[in-house]
């Protein structure tokens, strides 16, 4: 069947106006006439068959003439060109090379067509020679790419050897040239990862959908790119070549050294974790304290991370590798910041200053609290409280503050030593130092916590009592079985006692509520400060710094997909597109690679928090056992 390329005259493949390829003789009598080359008229009614897409690496654009080697994806009708084989070559050797690569990469590589780059005056003989190659490397369809000197536009045609099965379909396809950067496509990682067939099970025919197939092809045929330009192999190839072989010696050394180092560190870490799981630490009061101290949680978290990083088994896939790298960078940054803090603290006797400032601050806080209580024992904000209850509560709390002050003064000679030792912990990382700070705040505001608990318990009791007595007041009761309020006939004495208590509670409620409100506000202040510290710790713990750095310096490494740019276009020539890597947005980088945080802090929704506050339930900065995740 003779096929005339559309726009062949304009392709500049020599003076031959039309190249006729010998085909099966039965097809000759009825050549399929093609419509004349047309400018892309809008709304043209011509129905082409599926457009053939030729993915061409930009690095091969300046290569000498030769053969196109790549993979043909029939589902997409796209040809992924991977390399150009230059003249001269022996066809058998080319086939052997392809077979080798195919074995290594398990994808079907083939010679897709010819590449012709006219540097000098076009030679007619070359054109014919290239035609002839098609008979040696039979491929369906046969691509013929041609680039002329001094012209930006290439010509390209694809021919089918056999007669098309369906009589209506034209024998020649429309061709679309898509340039891609081989290096970027090779190194980039698609997000979300397409469901690629396993490297073991996947054979050449298994294909992922669409563009993922292109990425997959390029990534798997890495074996083809291994030979560099200085190798004098049997077959000369033109493709992307990595630079900087010299630098990789250092990388190689580091790789060799990392094995034993990892082994040693893993052994040390396993010793530490074994020590930490010793039974002495699991006795009742100790285990309770460990679970409440954020320092312990942070240390445990870091230990887990380090164990994961230095585990001797190899990372299975890229996501695990990224996770390891992120953790390593986060730990390194953490330790660096910690050392900076350490050097700042231990220079110029700052510890001593801090210790000297701490006791007066604690005293001052206690004094302010005393003033607050005295204000509450009067008529705070003009509110009329129950005087007797007010006095009782106020004296009770004042006694607590008195106890607290004496405790602080007992501690004051040792505070500097304690702080000095605490400061040393900063070399374990800034997060550990911050966690210790949070714990110190918790310990120093223990009196506020006590007040809060007393106030909340009292208030909770009153609210619960009032709610049930209010039902009794109306002659109703809560039906537990049906989860509703039912009417109920009470006895006379029940009604009497209930109403008496109700009256008493109603008149005492404002006093309790005010104490509860004030101490809850204080407690919330402390919890907010602690929460901010925890937020900072979580930020350092969970920010994927390596991935962010990669996104910043090598945007193509993490790709959200591709984007196309239409290159300059001339009527009658194939459409040329430039395929670029679409980098992953920063928020998605963070979202995808976020490290798991410590996970010891509760996550209240605002409504549930307000509910808890109103009903006087206790609020903790750590997660309760029975807590439900909102």
């Amino acid at each position, binding site marked *: 069947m003779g096929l005339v390329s559309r726009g062949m005259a304009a392709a500049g493949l020599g003076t031959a106006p039309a190249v006729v390829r010998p085909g099966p003789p039965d097809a000759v009598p009825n050549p399929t006439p093609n419509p004349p080359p047309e*400018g*892309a*008229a*809008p*709304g*043209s009614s*011509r*129905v*082409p*068959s*599926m*457009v053939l*897409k030729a993915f061409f690496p930009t690095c091969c654009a300046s290569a000498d003439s030769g053969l196109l080697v790549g993979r043909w994806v*029939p*589902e*997409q*009708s796209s040809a992924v060109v991977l390399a150009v084989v230059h003249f001269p070559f022996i066809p058998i050797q080319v086939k052997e090379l392809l077979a080798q690569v195919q074995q290594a990469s398990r994808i079907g590589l083939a010679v897709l067509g010819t590449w012709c780059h006219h540097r000098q005056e076009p030679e007619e003989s070359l054109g014919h020679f290239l035609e002839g190659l098609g008979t040696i490397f039979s491929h369906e369809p046969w691509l013929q790419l041609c680039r002329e000197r001094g012209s930006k536009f290439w010509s390209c045609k694809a021919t089918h050897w056999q007669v098309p099965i369906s009589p209506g379909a034209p024998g020649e396809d*429309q061709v*679309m040239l*898509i340039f891609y950067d081989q290096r970027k496509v090779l190194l980039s990682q698609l997000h979300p990862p397409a469901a690629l067939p396993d490297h073991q099970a996947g054979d050449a025919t298994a294909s992922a*959908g*669409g*563009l993922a197939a292109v990425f997959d092809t390029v990534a798997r045929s890495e074996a083809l790119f291994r030979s560099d330009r200085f190798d004098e192999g049997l077959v000369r190839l033109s493709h992307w070549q990595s630079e900087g072989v010299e630098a990789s010696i250092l990388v190689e050394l580091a790789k060799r050294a990392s094995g034993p180092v990892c082994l040693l560190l893993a052994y040390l870490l396993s010793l530490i974790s074994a020590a930490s799981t010793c039974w002495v630490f699991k006795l009742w009061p100790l285990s309770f304290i460990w679970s409440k101290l954020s320092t312990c949680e942070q240390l445990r978290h870091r230990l887990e991370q380090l164990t994961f990083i230095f585990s001797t088994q190899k990372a299975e896939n890229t996501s695990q590798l990224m996770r390891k790298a992120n953790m390593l960078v986060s730990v390194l940054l953490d330790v660096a910041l910690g050392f900076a803090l350490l050097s700042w603290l231990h220079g110029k006797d700052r510890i001593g200053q801090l210790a000297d400032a701490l006791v007066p601050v604690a005293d001052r806080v206690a004094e302010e609290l005393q003033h607050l209580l005295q204000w509450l024992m009067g008529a705070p904000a003009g509110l009329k409280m129950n005087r007797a209850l007010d006095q009782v509560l106020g004296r009770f709390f004042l006694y607590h503050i008195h106890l607290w002050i004496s405790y602080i003064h007992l501690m004051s000679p040792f505070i500097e030593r304690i702080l000095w030792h605490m400061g040393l912990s900063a070399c374990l990382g800034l997060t550990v130092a911050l966690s210790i700070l949070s714990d110190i705040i918790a310990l120093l505001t223990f009196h506020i916590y006590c007040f809060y608990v007393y106030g909340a318990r009292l208030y909770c009791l009153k609210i619960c009592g009032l709610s049930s007595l209010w039902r009794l007041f109306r002659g109703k009761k809560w039906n537990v079985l049906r989860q509703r309020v039912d009417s109920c006939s009470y006895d006379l004495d029940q009604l009497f006692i209930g109403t008496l208590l109700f009256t008493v509670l109603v008149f005492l409620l404002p006093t309790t509520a005010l104490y509860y409100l004030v101490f809850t506000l204080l407690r919330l202040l402390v919890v907010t400060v602690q929460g901010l510290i925890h937020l900072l710790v979580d930020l350092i713990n969970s920010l994927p710094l390596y991935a962010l750095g990669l996104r910043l310096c090598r945007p193509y490494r993490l790709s959200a*997909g*591709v*984007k*196309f740019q*239409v290159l300059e*276009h001339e009527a009658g020539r194939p*459409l040329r*597109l430039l395929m670029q890597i*679409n980098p992953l*947005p920063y928020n998605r980088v963070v979202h995808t690679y976020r490290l798991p945080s410590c996970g010891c802090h509760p996550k209240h929704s605002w409504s549930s928090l307000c509910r808890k506050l109103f009903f006087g339930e206790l609020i903790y900065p750590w997660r309760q056992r029975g807590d439900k995740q909102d």
Partner: protein
Amino acid sequence: MEDELSFSDIYGGRLALQRRYYSPSCREFCLSCPRLSLRSLTAVTCTVWLAAYGLFTLCENSMILSAAIFITLLGLLGYLHFVKIDQETLLIIDSLGIQMTSSYASGKESTTFIEMGKVKDVIINEAIYMQKVIYYLCILLNDPVEPHGISQVVPVFQSAKPRLDCLIEVYRSCQEILAHRKATPTSS
């Protein structure tokens, strides 16, 4: 081939629709909004600075003035970089996919490419927006699990919000290309 038409958005502002037909299988539609006008910029800046100056005369704290300058600068940068979209482009390539690009006023471009295999159809839909009903063009994506289901609806020209007449132009062209795809099944 390239031509430019003038339309209006749902508020009555001017929009320019550029159509570029590269080939029968590749078309591009580019909707350009009017640029940030100097008048509104001046008005907002003056308002903020006058308010800051009013506060300054009350409080006599010069921090307010510097804060106002910083807020206006940061606000302007943020507005140009994250909010103001100058141009929205829809590139549709037969058998390859649909690409949507939004160019921000600062030059930042955000691109989304949807492969043709995932595209179920392109339709015009109605939505209730504030107090009126507007039309918008959207791309329906195939559900990978259920063959006839729709997994997602991706709206196009989200910031320009052109009126129905403009949408119909784009819709017709899109449907022409999508019709090719339907005429030739995926197995070639």
